[in-house]
């Protein structure tokens, strides 16, 4: 245990240091709540492995007097509760990483909070962990949260678990109590199929059975917690799978060298192996495995290398090279678990940025199949996902991506979703399987296309997307504009609440989730009209930037005009043509845009009109002029 303090003489030292260079590394996470003594346990591990220095110890004594919860003793938990806010509140609110080493192994500990509202943090810690230590209080035994922790660890692919039955001192070091908890634990985790699991009684506060055997626990014939961490066999299963090499960076110092830099994420990559580029299906042979330290004959999962191939193929960042005879799946539709990590809910249909390996694409959830209650594991239905919720979903991406099931390969089976407006990381995803729908439903090739239809009509089909508050004058202006276009012999159609909400979208209400879906359907319908060659006027409040952006991206360049009808809230409320504001202000209508539901104004609309300085007819005229200038009204 710890660093040997008695070693003397340079040679002994040198060989000792050399032996320390080749230790293995185990990453584990600890889950449990403050009450279970989680921070105390980590403090204990650091303390026992002599990683607490004198100056830290004196800082600790100072802090213990200020915030400590264990009377006169040094509070080991304070050592690990890092951020100011946490030290004051006495809770661990974020993932913290700790480091210690023994003579046998180096350890990286992800210290994660235990409460349900921190599922996000636990999932983060579990994503890189080889093992999970689940902490329970011996007096309380298995709790709902212990089950939740085991479930999340299992979902994230942690293969080894330890149940640390802490505070055994407070349960009188009672063997019967321990056996009772152990039996319950074993029965519970049977269905998760962990590669290894063990229950160990400990007292983190007094150090019993953490790294030193305890006379108080003479009846326990298993290892100490530290012994177990030092010896558990956690071989990486990815090594036995097919080769996966996600390309991170194309390495071209000059015209004589072209290599692909990345980290092997599956299989053993050898010179002479035949690899396929997942996206194109093209194959070639590995010529060299180049590193700064010389060429390698083979590279294992986790090794960062640069690969050169015999043939010149079109390969760029984001491509995945895989065994030619066992390739990753390529699809634009797949089913996955999502862990939602943002305060802003997920809505099916809203587009996000998806990052998998080195590849970044636009993606959206097409269907939330079911949500999972993390405490009872029941399947629930739902149209949106809130912070810390987990769901099984179908996703679709704008371009096909290469992937493996998460179970087979954590690197090629995992992704994150990023909000397009705030750039926040909003979800973690674990892919289960591809949906073949997209590849099987081939588009019918049509002889008459959009251009042909537009030519016949003598116009260029576009969408005029009117957005603005309720009562801002969108429909009035759109009507005036359609009249003018009609008079010029142009083919037009208006999509608005009246003709869409009563038919196509009559199943939708006014929750945020339904509003997103409402706009998605309207946008898709507008796309069909444009394809038919029609000048399409869309008049919807469409309050969210994300959905207007989605509509824009459905159309081709130059086909989308965002028309912002910029009428201030007070004017709309004063005008109140349908009496809605009066009712909303009286509390009779919920989720009313501008009142208790937000309106996100466009940042760069093609056209902005203000109803304060002109009549609807004059405004329509102004838009018409713009369309004339842009050549929309003449044949293509």
């Amino acid at each position, binding site marked *: 245990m710890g660093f040997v303090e008695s070693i003397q003489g*340079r040679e002994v030292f040198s060989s000792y240091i050399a032996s320390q260079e080749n230790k293995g590394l185990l990453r584990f996470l600890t889950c449990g709540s403050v009450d279970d003594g989680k921070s105390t346990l980590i403090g204990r591990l650091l303390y026992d492995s002599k990683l607490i220095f004198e100056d830290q110890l004196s800082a600790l004594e100072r802090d213990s007097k200020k915030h400590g919860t264990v009377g006169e003793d040094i509070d080991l938990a304070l050592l690990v509760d890092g951020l100011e806010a946490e030290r004051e509140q006495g809770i661990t609110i974020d993932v913290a990483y700790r480091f210690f080493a023994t003579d046998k192994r180096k350890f990286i500990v992800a210290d994660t909070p235990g409460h349900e509202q921190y599922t996000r943090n636990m999932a983060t810690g579990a994503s890189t962990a080889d093992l999970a230590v689940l902490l329970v209080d011996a007096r309380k035994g298995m709790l709902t949260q212990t089950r939740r922790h085991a479930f999340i660890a299992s979902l994230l692919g942690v293969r080894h678990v330890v149940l640390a039955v802490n505070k055994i001192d407070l349960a009188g070091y009672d063997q019967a109590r321990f056996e009772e908890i152990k039996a319950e634990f074993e029965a519970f985790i049977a269905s998760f199929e962990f590669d290894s699991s063990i229950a160990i009684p400990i007292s983190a506060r007094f150090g019993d059975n953490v790294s030193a055997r305890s006379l108080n626990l003479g009846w326990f014939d298993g290892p100490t917690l530290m012994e177990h961490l030092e010896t558990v066999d956690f071989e990486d299963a990815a090594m036995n799978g097919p080769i996966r090499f996600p390309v991170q960076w194309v390495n071209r110092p000059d015209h004589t060298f072209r290599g692909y830099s990345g980290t092997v994420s599956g299989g053993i990559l050898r010179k002479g192996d035949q690899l396929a580029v997942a996206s194109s299906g093209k194959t070639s042979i590995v010529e060299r495995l180049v590193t700064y330290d010389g060429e390698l004959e083979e590279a294992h999962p986790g090794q960062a290398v640069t690969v050169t191939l015999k043939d010149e193929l079109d390969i760029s960042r984001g491509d995945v090279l895989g065994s030619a005879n066992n390739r990753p799946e390529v699809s634009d539709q797949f089913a996955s678990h999502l862990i939602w990590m943002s305060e802003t809910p997920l809505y099916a249909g809203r587009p996000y940025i998806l990052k998998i390996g080195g590849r970044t694409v636009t993606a959206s959830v097409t269907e939330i199949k079911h949500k999972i209650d993390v405490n009872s594991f029941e399947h629930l239905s739902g149209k949106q996902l809130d912070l810390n919720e987990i769901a099984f979903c179908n996703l679709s991406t704008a371009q096909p991506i290469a992937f493996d099931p998460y179970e087979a390969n954590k690197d090629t089976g995992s992704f994150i979703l990023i909000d397009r407006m705030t750039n926040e990381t909003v979800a973690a995803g674990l892919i289960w399987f591809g949906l073949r729908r997209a590849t099987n439903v081939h588009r019918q090739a049509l002889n008459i296309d959009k251009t042909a239809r537009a030519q016949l009509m003598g116009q260029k089909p576009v969408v005029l997307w009117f957005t603005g508050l309720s009562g801002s004058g969108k429909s009035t202006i759109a009507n005036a504009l359609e009249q003018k276009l009609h008079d010029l012999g142009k083919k037009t159609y208006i999509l608005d609440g009246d003709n869409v909400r009563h038919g196509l979208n009559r199943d939708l209400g006014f929750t945020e989730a339904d509003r997103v879906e409402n706009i998605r359907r309207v946008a898709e319908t507008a796309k069909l009209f444009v394809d038919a060659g029609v000048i399409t006027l869309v008049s919807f409040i469409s309050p969210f930037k994300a959905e207007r952006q989605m509509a824009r991206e459905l159309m081709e360049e130059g086909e989308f005009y965002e028309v912002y009808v910029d009428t201030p809230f007070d004017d709309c409320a004063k005008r109140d043509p349908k009496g809605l504001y009066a009712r909303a202000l009286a509390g009779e209508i919920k989720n009313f845009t501008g009142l208790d539901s937000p309106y996100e104004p466009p940042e760069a609309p093609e056209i902005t009109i203000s109803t304060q300085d002109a009549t609807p007819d004059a405004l329509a005229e102004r838009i018409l002029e713009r369309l004339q200038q842009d050549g929309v009204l003449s044949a293509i």
Partner: protein
Amino acid sequence: MEAGQLSHLKRLENESIHIIREVAAEFNNPVMLYSIGKDSAVMLHLALKAFYPSKPPFPLLHVDTTWKFKEMIKFRDETVRKLGLDLIVHSNSEGVERGINPFDHGSSNYTHVMKTEALKQALDKYGFDAAFGGARRDEEKSRAKERVFSFRNSSHAWDPKKQRPELWSIYNSRVSKGESIRAFPLSNWTELDIWQYILAEGIDIVPLYLAAERPVVQRSGTLLMVDDERFPLLEGESPQKKMVRFRTLGCYPLTGAIESDATELNDVVGEMLLAKTSERQGRLIDHDDAASMEKKKREGYF
């Protein structure tokens, strides 16, 4: 080594290379902060490995407070010349004009003007959207929770409550104009890992890390090296020659030396294994109060 598995140093090395490549691939204008210390030496070594046979596709930036040890500057210039890399040196000229120094203005004030402000000036001047730093999570409590890709708003501030979740080895590199990412490829290394790696790889480091006879004075329990004539000696003080070395390097008036006979790297690692105080103790800026680093980082410090 355990069967079929990479040693802990190799695992750390590979992880760092992955991070460094990811930054180079995803950002328009990255830069590597080069502080000349041992962590920077390791980070630079990893960058050479990450892109070989290419050179690292970004420049180095040294924020020069003008109070660095002379040997550091010499080492910096030699390293850059030997490797043929681009180096940008930036000092806060306004601070220099105002004569801001660690003796008269206090360590905290001085650090703010000559380090934090200078760093922000340089990042703004060149429009860097990502900056590598050699910070490690084991250094200090608030660092333990910092992400590998640490988001900074347009005034370079860190908000510990608004950190992006970071899972697997997928890093979110999206920023809006003016915002940036500080990337920490050494997040998971400890001080011992750094020394073991320097030893194993034969990485050149500033000789100040090795014991030698140097002129020092003792002030409130700290040994300070008299590196040049700007050091104001107090009455009755005269520099003594002592065998000393440094566990961490910064501005010479703020960096405490320790008495040591470790003239070779091996000995340094040996002493390190027996150490009873953590390395930042030699740095005077962390002692102001329990949360001093967190405060500095909120202001834009690395």
